[in-house]
């Protein structure tokens, strides 16, 4: 069996503060009116405890190649500065191994992938970060609407 991965290691180089990442939001994470996301759209995945996004330079096709989602309704901004304000680093980790600690996981992040590291965040901290992301997303508006 492969050795366990080192916990909490960065999954890639830290991203610049001024970069604005792209987060695909599914219909099930939008407000009922379909016009804006819920806070829950900015929650980490359970597998690696990171929030998957695409780099700012990714085209719409690339974003959806990174974050394939059947029910997506839009792409919303996640500024690296918001993550930093909550002490959550953001990594450009395309082509890098998944940030989980599960032995044997061989997943590799796709092209243009970036992660916000929420592995050490408590529930309350995750909610606060998601709330800050939502506020910023609403202030800036969607990068793309897909339906």
């Amino acid at each position, binding site marked *: 069996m492969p050795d366990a991965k080192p916990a909490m290691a960065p999954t890639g180089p830290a991203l610049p503060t001024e970069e604005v990442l792209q987060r*695909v939001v*599914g*219909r*099930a*994470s*939008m*407000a*009922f*009116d*379909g016009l804006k996301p*819920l*806070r*829950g*759209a900015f*929650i*980490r*995945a*359970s*597998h*690696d405890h*990171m*929030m*998957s996004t695409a780099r700012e330079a990714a085209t719409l096709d690339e974003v959806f190649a*990174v*974050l*394939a*989602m*059947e*029910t997506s309704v839009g792409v919303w901004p996640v500024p690296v500065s918001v993550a930093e304000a909550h002490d959550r680093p953001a990594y450009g980790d395309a082509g890098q191994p*998944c940030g*989980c600690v599960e032995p044997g996981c061989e*997943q590799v*992040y*796709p092209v243009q*992938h970036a992660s916000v590291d929420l592995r050490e965040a408590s*529930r*309350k901290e995750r*909610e*606060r970060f998601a*709330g800050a992301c939502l506020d910023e997303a609403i202030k800036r508006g969607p990068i793309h609407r897909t339906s």
Partner: protein
Amino acid sequence: MSASAWQQRAGAVATLAVAPLLPARIPAVESISWSGRTKVVIESTMTSSPGQTVNVFVTGRVEYLDHLLARAIDARHVAETRTRKDTMMSRLTAIAELRDGWAGPGSEAIARDVVTALEQVIPRVADVPREYGARADGSVAFEWREERKSFTALLEGAGPEMFLLADEGGEDFAEAEGAFDLDAFVRFVRTGIVDA
């Protein structure tokens, strides 16, 4: 006044009363029917997001015709309630169909126990302005904000487990977590108060 005159007057008043009061997406009153000589039932439909149809019923008695306007206002409340419940149930259907990976790499489907719990919760909270959605970690959460205070009522996993948070920032927050308790969960969603 004859029955037909009552009916005519009731229909006219009801149409005038209902049409401007109910949301714009509700078309004109579609039918007016009578039960006996004294009860009038006005039926219409509305479209709720996303694409769901809800029946709207206004019930009045001809002897209370002067109060039909109030009845119409009540009907608006009923319509909104039914719409929200309908929307909540529609979302639940969609959530139950999510599969692993639905929100990108590593995201999880919603556990069956969470869906079952929501089936119990929704009928008891559909009359309060709450929204809920699925999350990439396989949880489902009601979330709302009142001024500077944010609220989260979350369900996840087998059981399911619940997490409640009323958060005003800094050290000003209250939270609770544990096995799903229907009454405590509903009470929090309705009031935002975390039981001690």
